[in-house]
């Protein structure tokens, strides 16, 4: 693995990365959370788009591996955004950093940056395209719930039925999960209002997956996990998005719908809009994996940085 640009990966590769994240996860139980693996390595968090959660998670992951972590806010005028992406990337490469974690509002920007800078690049979210470390942490948290925290190693998600609910069309989280979870054997269904589902293929699939407009239909099938996406009705789809009332009626995990899902894991990438994507009772229930996902994020990002940057991992050095 030279870069992490996409969650499209082979099953064995994904399991190995999740197992490495399990190794990293053990640091959570230590008093001194520091491994020497990336001592002397410098990682730049290049964030062209605001992010607190993802940037903090990458920063903690890098620091726990003893890397020097620098945060660069690449926000500039939108007119010069593309140009500054390239020039900022070349500038950072010229400073001799070892790896770049990039978040961009433009789909495909990390892939272009990877070509331009010649250093390992981690996609920390690009536009409406992908967010591969989010999918990895989702798979990590879900695998622990399904198989048990101590029995997850080496396991996949064969036959696990996952419904991803919300604004699929504009979600990079959905896209990365739509690639990674099926690679691990999960059966994924996309659920959302018609105007917020991605363009269908000739066979009716969307992003290569089954898609449904009725959440109640999918709940009746008793999925193993429900992944609720953050919706930004006011921003994403303008006048074609349903109103909040319409959205809650059709696609929110309300208390009433929660009662019909006694066994499903409730996942959310955060930050949550309580009352919109899911009720507070759902968010705080024992079925909720929300905080476990956040914890998993650090472990997964440690595993990714270690894979790309540790000298004994081959990387691109």
């Amino acid at each position, binding site marked *: 693995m030279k870069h992490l640009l996409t969650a499209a990966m082979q099953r064995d590769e994904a399991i190995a990365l999740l197992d490495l994240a399990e190794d990293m996860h053990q640091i959570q139980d230590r008093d001194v959370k520091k491994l020497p693996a990336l001592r002397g390595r410098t990682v730049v968090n290049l964030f062209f788009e605001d992010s607190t959660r993802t940037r903090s998670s990458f920063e903690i992951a890098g620091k726990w591996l003893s890397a020097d972590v620098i945060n660069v806010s690449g926000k500039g005028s*939108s007119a010069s*955004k*593309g*140009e500054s*992406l*390239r020039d900022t990337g070349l500038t950072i490469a010229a400073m001799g950093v070892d790896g770049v974690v990039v978040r*961009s509002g*433009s*789909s*495909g*920007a990390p*892939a*272009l940056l990877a070509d331009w800078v010649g250093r390992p690049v981690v996609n920390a979210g*690009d*536009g*409406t*395209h*992908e967010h591969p470390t989010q999918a990895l942490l989702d798979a990590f948290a879900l695998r622990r719930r399904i198989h048990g925290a101590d029995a997850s190693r080496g396991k996949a998600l064969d036959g696990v039925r996952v419904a991803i609910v919300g604004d699929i*069309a504009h979600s*990079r989280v959905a*896209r990365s999960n739509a690639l990674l979870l099926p690679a691990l054997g999960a059966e994924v269904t996309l659920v959302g209002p018609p105007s917020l589902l*991605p*363009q*269908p*293929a000739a066979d009716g699939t*969307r*992003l290569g997956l089954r898609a449904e407009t009725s959440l109640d239909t999918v709940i009746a099938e008793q999925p193993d996990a429900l992944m609720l996406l953050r919706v930004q009705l006011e921003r994403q789809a*303008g006048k074609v998005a349903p109103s909040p009332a319409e959205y809650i009626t059709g696609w929110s995990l309300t208390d009433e719908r929660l009662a019909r899902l006694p066994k499903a894991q409730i996942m959310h990438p955060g930050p949550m809009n309580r009352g919109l994507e899911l009720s507070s009772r759902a968010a705080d229930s024992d079925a909720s994996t929300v905080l476990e996902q956040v914890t998993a994020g650090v472990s997964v990002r440690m595993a990714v940085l270690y894979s790309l940057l540790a000298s004994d991992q081959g990387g691109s050095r």
Partner: protein
Amino acid sequence: MTTPQTVSTTHGGTPTRTGTTLLTGAAFLGGEPRDLAIADGVFVDPSAIDRDAAEVLDASGLVALPGLVDLHAHLRQPGGEQSETVASGVRAAAAGGYTCVFAMANTTPVADTPAVVEQVHRLGLEAGLATVRPIGAVSVGLAGERLADMGMLAGSAARVSVFSDDGHCVADAELMRRALEHAAALGAVIAQHAQDPSLTRGSVMHESPLAAELGLTGWPSAAEAAIVARDAMLAEAAGARLHVCHVSTLETVEVVRAAKARGIAITAEVTPHHLLLTEELVRSYDARYKVNPPLRADRDVRALREALADGTIDIVATDHAPHAPEAKQAAFADAAFGMVGLETALGVVQESMVETGLLDWAGVARVMSTAPAAIGREPGYDAPLEIGSPAHLVLVDPAARRIVEAASLKGRSTNSPFLGVELPGTVLHVWHGGRRTVVDGEIAEMPVQA
């Protein structure tokens, strides 16, 4: 009648020259070999010339085509000189076999006043190499709100006969209706960039499962076809001629076909890139493949080729759109739309239409010269290569193949989707009004004309 060293400026400033040239053995419009003779800027009877006094060029193995006419090029001047000028644009045009180029109106300032179109017209005369015909804006500032002074543009020294807001759709139906009515009265044509803006907010590539996968905002086919259907109805009611720029989808082809069957005076163009390339190239996120309308799917490419072959689509036009490197070295959504095309158009048409058996060379002459000249009302192209016609001539080596390289492009910008691609056919020699503009594939430098 013939005055050596004088410059005629009545029709695009085509310089005339004395001396007789005899071309032997060229395949006439790709057919049987036939000798061609040029004297005093026109084709003359080769049997009636003094062969001993003529300059003789053995053209056997080459295809003789009329000088090509591009109804749709962005020459960027005034205002965009970092990416192209009229002078650099006509160099690219000549290298591609063109002898006449219609220059789009989306310059800075916009070509919505006689001053601007006359400036572009004058720059074309100074550049020589090819006739430059300025296109006038439909609306003031391309803003789509008020009609430009179309009559003044038509009556200017630039004698505008094509009006377009290209780059923008004339989206307001009332404005389009009135523009068509004015154009009809002027004998001009409205060239519409058909793109419903409300269906294409933020759109950067073809709307498709691939766009969904790549996380890029899609540009639906219906946004083009719906405007064409509307405009066809408006043109019919106004008794006007409508020309559809860069048709890119199967659905639009079907709308144009239906409009023609109804007797509406509609013509349509397709670009070379839409005849050869598909959206799959966007997978790389390389902004060289970002163009408006976007590269479409296989089914659209097939439909466009068939429509060009059966006459539903009348012409090939390049939509030559030069951009400086920084405009393309950006994330896909942030980069500029457009591709240069003048220098690769003929090769792409040979590859996609001739070598597939869909069009013969006479057909190429029709869709790249005779028909675009007729739509743009440029005289001198109605009887290609015939005795008495202006000597606008291209000699192509159809057997040669070349790999397109940035260093060999004659225009100022190199944002070609064909860099590194091998294309058939080489433009070896070009005459513009009897004057040689390309010799052995190189631009024949001309003295600057006052």
